[in-house]
């Protein structure tokens, strides 16, 4: 998604060097995708092995000085989630952003994720409703393909902060496919302002601490 297709991860004295998405080295990345020989290779691992690799990503990558470390997780409440928390605990976790789509089938799973956060003592920074409505580029009619408002409702129900909704946008999916920076390519779009507003709220929340 960030157009760093087949880079190699190098070793240095302080550990694995992350892959940088930009020349100024402001955005460092680490993913198991960088460690695979072939992009289609399946990583068929059970929990303990995944847990071990996550530990290495936290302790053995030379992240350097960072302002923010974002951790993208798979769906669920299992090995990976517990492993990330265990390994980051000593570094203090600021909190979790929960992403849902509007339909009840999706918010149902996010309810469980909220319980997970509560049980493990992770602060919930807020909820984002993704794929919220689709504006037809031909006639501007808005269709709620995956319903609407479920994320906001869930935030109310669970007394979490609602960070905002991001609409379905073919331009966004396309730019993810091509690995272009959507925020730079389409600064005029409504999707941009939605994502931007959420990022700004989050950053200010982090600075308040």
């Amino acid at each position: 998604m960030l157009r760093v297709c087949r880079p190699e991860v190098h070793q240095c004295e302080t550990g694995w060097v992350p892959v940088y998405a930009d020349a100024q080295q402001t955005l460092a990345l680490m993913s198991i995708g960088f460690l695979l020989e072939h992009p289609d290779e399946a990583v068929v691992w059970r929990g303990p092995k995944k847990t071990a690799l996550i530990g290495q990503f936290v302790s053995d990558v030379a992240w350097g000085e960072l302002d923010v470390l974002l951790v993208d997780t798979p769906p669920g409440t299992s090995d990976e989630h517990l492993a990330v928390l265990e390994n980051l605990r000593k570094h203090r976790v600021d909190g979790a952003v929960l992403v849902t789509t509007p339909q009840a089938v999706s918010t149902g799973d996010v309810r469980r994720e909220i319980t997970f956060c509560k049980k493990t003592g992770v602060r919930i920074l807020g909820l984002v409703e993704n794929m919220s409505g689709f504006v037809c580029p031909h006639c501007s009619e808005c269709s709620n393909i995956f319903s609407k408002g479920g994320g906001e409702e869930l935030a109310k129900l669970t007394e979490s902060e609602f960070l905002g909704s991001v609409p379905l946008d073919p331009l966004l999916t396309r730019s993810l496919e091509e690995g272009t920076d959507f925020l730079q390519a389409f600064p005029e779009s409504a999707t941009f302002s939605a994502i931007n507003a959420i990022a700004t709220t989050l950053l200010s929340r982090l600075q308040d601490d």
Partner: protein
Amino acid sequence: MADIPVDAPQHCPGTTSDQAGKTSACQGCPNQNICSSGAAKAPDPAIDEIKVKLATVKHKILVLSGKGGVGKSTFSAHLAHALARDETKEVALLDVDICGPSIPKIMGLEGEQVHQSGSGWSPVYVEDNLAVMSIGFLLSSPDDAVIWRGPKKNGMIKQFLRDVDWSELDFLIVDTPPGTSDEHLSIVQYLGGAGIDGAVIITTPQEVSLQDVRKEIGFCQKVKLPIIGVVENMSGFVCPRCKNTSQIFPPTTGGAERMCEELNLPLLGKVPLDPRIGRSCDEGKSFLSEVPDSSAAVAYGSIVQKIKDYCTSHTTSGEKSE
């Protein structure tokens, strides 16, 4: 490897290794005797028990995907509904997504509980010939999170296969979580003895999703699981007002069609995005009977027919032993 217990001593050779119980690292391990006797190397006795239990199940189909949120559960549920339309067929749907069970909601069975009987756990019935089992039925509230690591999830899957009173079935559909990890290995392992007809792989048209699907296909090949075919879900959206089609998830690399050509796999069909599908799922109704004449329902119909044809042309080991 995976057969090294989490709490094993350092340098544990693994419980199924030839060296199990015999290396210097095994000295002092409380399980040394079990390992050296070779008992740990033997396959799990549950595999045979499951084989006996599921001998009356004619066809077993797995539904897989690489990414989350591409519509696996929606597809599994509708496949089950469609197969159960034929009243002479007994159909069951098993949800092995332990941490995110959506099947109860989609089937309109939220809040239902599993009952215990002499012959095991009774599944929950949507219709006379459509049984459903999910961990969701064992939870006390919709907020309940199942915070389990792999081994516990595996135990649950084993129970679902061995201890549920499935009785005579024509089709057992297994809905899985995304990825290629514990749940997938377990289901393939436990059903190995009983025989699986094959897997249906669900994807969305973008490369980001296809990339993960190729990994899933790699997984199937590694564990020798036959692939029935690929379904492209969320394939285009027809605006209800102007009838123009938009590619919300653009197939920039040719979508599932190209991938299937390259990998020589059958493409079972493409299901368009339709707001009514999501709504039916939220309400726990079958989209196929709500809006039977929609293009998505027609697409579903032809995909289900192809899966049926596949099943009738492939007999599983379970049938052979009859």
